[in-house]
């Protein structure tokens, strides 16, 4: 009976009880109260949905909304957790009940839920309903629950604020590696989701089972009793405790427990408790037993007990029912089953009540097949197909199978019984014949029948049925088994019991169970885990590098050097990237680059990486001063894998390019002839040095390198057509740079255009422009006022002023030859304007207006006498 129907009747529009309700026990201290749990979904108007658990008090079996009354609501909020707990002191393996703890920021509830697939499905659904921790999703607000808040006086609000946590009070989740993680509690459902590794371990363990288990015999008692709707009236010991030795496991089945209509329609009967009690009291007195499980379908009930000392070795208990009665579904006929693992052996016990009547043996065969195909147990791993009866190491099948004795009339049967000629009688047994024809119970074995038929007697006697129907005696009540290492010790009926029109049957077995040798098990488990670790680690990408250390010798200004190496990938496809160290802006120093700096490699493939080193105006000064060195460590990172450190080293040859004007003025020698420390010290000298330069050698008026270039142009190029407008040659630039830095100016042989370009590069590479940054604004302001402009220039540091005037004089000289070289004031002003005046903010893109003013400023000096 699906009790969610009753819950649904109490809900408002838009709210749905989305899964069959579960009846559980709410534990508060010592109190135990039954509650009906419904998982309710509410669809929000803007899309999206929210969930809450509704807990109801209820009548014994809720059918309509009147039978339930709302007790409390637990919103499935972000801080909601549901975890399975082991109640203290209890033998959790008895497993009948699942104890779960519900927690939110406001409350904590402990609930016991019945074991089985309904509970499991319910819990999985709840786990799925959790809003998760995706920050993109809005926090659930649970506005829809507000109608329950006041209207329902029974709803306890632990705090005036109610259960709905105010924004901001939600506990902050750990963020590690950018992700968010829920509370530290084991969240229900997690294990299932991430169970693949477990599944692998399990299947490998199963493969090697023989290596760590020993077969040990355990005694199983299997009994079946059709009680014909009666209540227990006599002690069951003659049936259940007839042996000298106390069994390890009891499997006790009943049929026709309750023949009333109530039991049939509402699945509820007081007989269950009565018979359970009667059995519990009649178990073997020499041992203490624990109930593992009770399962009942209308009148078909199965009980499983183990000796207490074995309880810890019982696991994976599940129970299911299959009805094969009216419409093929109802529970007046059918079967119930309990499956479990005992030590390492999986066992399934089935109790069935098959179709009645002499001629219906094919119906009975069909019932058997239906039970086999429809009886499905949950797997711990939801990805695996459900477990069926046949997938067990040992199957014990008991019950009122209802097979009759055919082809003999009643008198003949009774005669054979009287003569105790059971062998002859057995020849007419339908089950025997169907077994022989392999139409039912294939692979099952039954022991020899050495007892008289157990059906049908006059109740309270050992007399055969004297009613009008006068049923022929039959072996209706049977026990069969399937599996290895099963030895039947006895198979008998118990005539002493007279409560029913059937006699109970019992069979005692010794069953060889695979018992784990803990030490060997540990060892093999360890091996498996290690091998999985190994496999996992083998799937971490790994590459080999043709070269791991890079040295760049004698690096010069604007001279590209390239070192290349090959990344050879191993067997795992991988993404690689040079990564940034935390405090750095880029994965390497500015003067270096890796090409490509990231990429993807297929297994066993190669890629060539070029490390390019190029020092330009931005990086040269600090290399001259020694503030920076040709030293770096690149970190080559493989996604999901290791990192490689690639050290880069080398030496830089200082150059006049990138050196400040005043520094060069103090260098009377070529820069490369000076000791490294001197270059470094002079480069670090501040722009305004005039005051304290006494200890230094008397400086030059302007940098000798500038003089050399200008002088060369003055002597060779004043009439050169398109001077400063044609590009030079890269090779010639390198030659010019070397001549300047070594002072070998006499060797200089280069085209005029190359020298002109070198001059422009020189001005461009100055860390402090000729018109110092500090004078930039005032220059732009007085542009157009020649006198004021001259005034600003006069405030520049001496060397800068000298260089400015020197350059202007040279440019005026060039203009005198404009007929030949085609230069005019505008061309020169536009070229030199942006080199001599530079925006201190260093913006590459100057505003047109600003550029124009800079050109105008230079223009004045070109067309006016200096």
């Amino acid at each position: 009976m699906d009790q969610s129907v009753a819950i649904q009747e109490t809900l408002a529009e838009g709210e749905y009880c989305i899964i069959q309700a579960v009846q559980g026990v709410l534990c508060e201290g010592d109190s135990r109260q039954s509650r009906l749990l419904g998982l309710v979904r509410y669809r929000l108007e803007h899309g999206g949905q929210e969930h809450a658990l509704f807990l109801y008090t209820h009548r014994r079996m809720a059918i309509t909304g009147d039978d339930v009354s709302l007790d409390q609501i637990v919103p499935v909020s972000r801080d909601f957790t549901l975890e399975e707990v082991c109640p203290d002191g209890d033998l959790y393996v008895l497993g009948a009940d699942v104890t779960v703890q519900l927690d939110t920021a406001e409350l904590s509830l402990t609930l016991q839920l019945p074991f089985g697939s309904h509970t499991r499905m319910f819990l999985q659904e709840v786990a799925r309903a959790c809003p998760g921790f995706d920050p993109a999703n809005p926090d659930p607000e649970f506005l829809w629950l507000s109608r329950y808040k006041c209207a329902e006086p029974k709803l306890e609000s632990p705090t005036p604020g109610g259960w709905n946590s105010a924004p901001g009070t939600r506990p902050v989740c750990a963020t590690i590696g950018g992700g968010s993680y829920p509370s530290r509690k084991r969240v229900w459902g997690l294990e299932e989701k991430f169970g693949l590794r477990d599944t692998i371990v399990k299947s490998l363990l199963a493969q090697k089972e023989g290596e760590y288990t020993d077969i040990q015999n355990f005694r199983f008692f299997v009994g079946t009793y059709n009680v014909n709707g009666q209540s227990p009236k006599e002690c069951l010991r003659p049936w259940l405790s007839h042996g000298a030795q106390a069994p390890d496991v009891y499997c006790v089945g009943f049929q026709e427990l309750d023949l009333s209509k109530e039991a049939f329609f509402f699945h509820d009967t007081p007989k269950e408790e009565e018979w359970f009690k009667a059995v519990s009291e009649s178990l073997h007195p020499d041992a203490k037993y624990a109930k593992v499980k009770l399962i009942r379908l209308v009148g078909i009930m199965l009980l499983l007990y183990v000796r207490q000392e074995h309880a810890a070795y019982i696991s994976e208990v599940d129970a299911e029912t299959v009805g094969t009665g009216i419409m093929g579904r109802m529970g007046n006929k059918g079967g119930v089953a309990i499956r479990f693992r005992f030590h390492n052996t999986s066992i399934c016990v089935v109790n069935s009540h098959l179709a009645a009547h002499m001629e219906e043996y094919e119906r009975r065969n069909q019932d058997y097949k239906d039970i086999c195909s429809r009886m499905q147990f949950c797997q711990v791993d939801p990805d695996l197909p459900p477990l069926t009866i046949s997938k067990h190491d040992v199957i014990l099948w008991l019950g009122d199978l209802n097979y009759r004795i055919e082809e003999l009339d009643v008198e003949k049967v009774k005669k054979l019984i009287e003569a105790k000629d059971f062998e002859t009688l057995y020849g007419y047994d339908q089950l025997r014949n169907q077994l022989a024809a392999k139409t039912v119970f294939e692979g099952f074995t039954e022991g020899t029948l050495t007892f008289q038929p157990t059906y049908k007697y006059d109740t309270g006697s050992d007399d055969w049925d004297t009613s009008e129907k006068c049923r022929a005696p039959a072996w209706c009540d049977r026990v069969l088994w399937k599996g290895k290492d099963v030895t039947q010790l006895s198979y008998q009926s118990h005539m002493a019991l007279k409560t029913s029109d059937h006699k109970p049957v019992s069979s005692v077995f010794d069953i060889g169970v695979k018992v784990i040798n803990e030490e060997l098990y540990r060892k093999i488990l360890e091996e498996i885990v290690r091998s999985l670790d190994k496999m996992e680690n083998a799937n971490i990408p790994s590459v080999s590098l043709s070269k791991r250390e890079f040295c760049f010798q004698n690096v010069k200004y604007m001279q590209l050097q390239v070192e290349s190496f090959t990344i050879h990938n191993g067997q795992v496809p991988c993404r690689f990237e040079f990564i940034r160290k935390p405090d750095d802006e880029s994965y390497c120093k500015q003067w270096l680059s890796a090409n490509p700096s990231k990429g993807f490699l297929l297994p066993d493939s190669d890629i060539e990486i070029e490390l390019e080193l190029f020092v330009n105006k931005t990086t040269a000064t600090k290399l001259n001063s020694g503030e920076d060195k040709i030293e770096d460590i690149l970190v080559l990172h493989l996604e999901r894998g290791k990192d490689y450190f690639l050290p880069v080293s080398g030496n830089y040859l200082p150059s006049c390019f990138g050196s400040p004007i005043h520094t060069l003025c103090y260098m009377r020698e070529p820069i490369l002839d000076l000791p490294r420390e001197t270059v470094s010290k002079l480069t670090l000298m501040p722009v305004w040095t005039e005051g304290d330069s006494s200890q230094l050698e008397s400086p030059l008026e302007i940098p000798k390198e500038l003089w050399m270039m200008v002088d060369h142009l003055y002597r060779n190029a004043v009439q050169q057509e398109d001077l400063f407008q044609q590009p030079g040659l890269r090779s010639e630039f390198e030659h010019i740079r070397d001549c300047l830095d070594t002072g070998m100016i006499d060797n200089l042989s280069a085209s005029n255009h190359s020298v002109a370009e070198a001059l422009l590069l020189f001005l461009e590479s100055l860390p402090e422009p000729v018109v110092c940054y500090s004078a930039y604004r005032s220059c732009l302001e007085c542009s157009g006022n020649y006198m004021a402009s001259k005034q600003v220039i006069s405030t520049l540091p001496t060397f800068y002023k000298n260089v400015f005037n020197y350059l202007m004089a040279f440019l005026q000289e060039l203009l005198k030859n404009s007929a030949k070289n085609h230069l005019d004031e505008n061309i020169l002003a536009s070229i030199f304007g942006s080199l001599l005046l530079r925006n201190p903010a260093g913006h590459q893109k100057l505003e047109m207006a600003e550029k124009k003013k800079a050109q105008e400023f230079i223009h004045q000096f070109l067309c006016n006498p200096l």
Partner: protein
Amino acid sequence: MATAPYNYSYIFKYIIIVMADCPHTIGVEFGTRIIEVSGQKIKLQIWDTAGQERFRAVTRSYYRGAAGALMVYDITRRSTYNHLSSWLTDARNLTNPNTVIILIGNKADLEAQRDVTYEEAKQFAEENGLLFLEASAKTGENVEDAFLEAAKKIYQNIQDGSLDLNAAESGVQHKPSAPQGGRLTSEPQPQREGCGC
């Protein structure tokens, strides 16, 4: 997600610094393994690097978010032992106060060539509040113990609440997520399907 080969309750990040003058690795090796502490499966994410002075600056970035730091020296080479204090300073400064630091004397199988006594190192460890044991990577002796000892201590810190999992750099993740190979930064990486096993 269902195909990801993980199931464990926690992920601990370990950094191993092997004091070395001639390194076994230039860079950071990355590996994982699963161990069990108090019935809890714990996945270790292990960053393994050589404690070479020239890489000290780069190595610093790997301490971040480590739950355990394993400092390994060679008992047959005193020079490796002498390096410890500067690296220990890094480990202390760059990890959170609850990071478990364990000192490991390697090559315990080479007793004849021993250059650092057990007692001396033990005392150093005690003075600095470190766990200490000697191990042999060659024979495997105590190597497993080193991982376990550190994990036990971390787990204990979680249990008694002194390690706050919600703290950004506890080095412990409670819920499995994509392994983050030796990323220097803590940016999240797109998860890739686990293809292994």
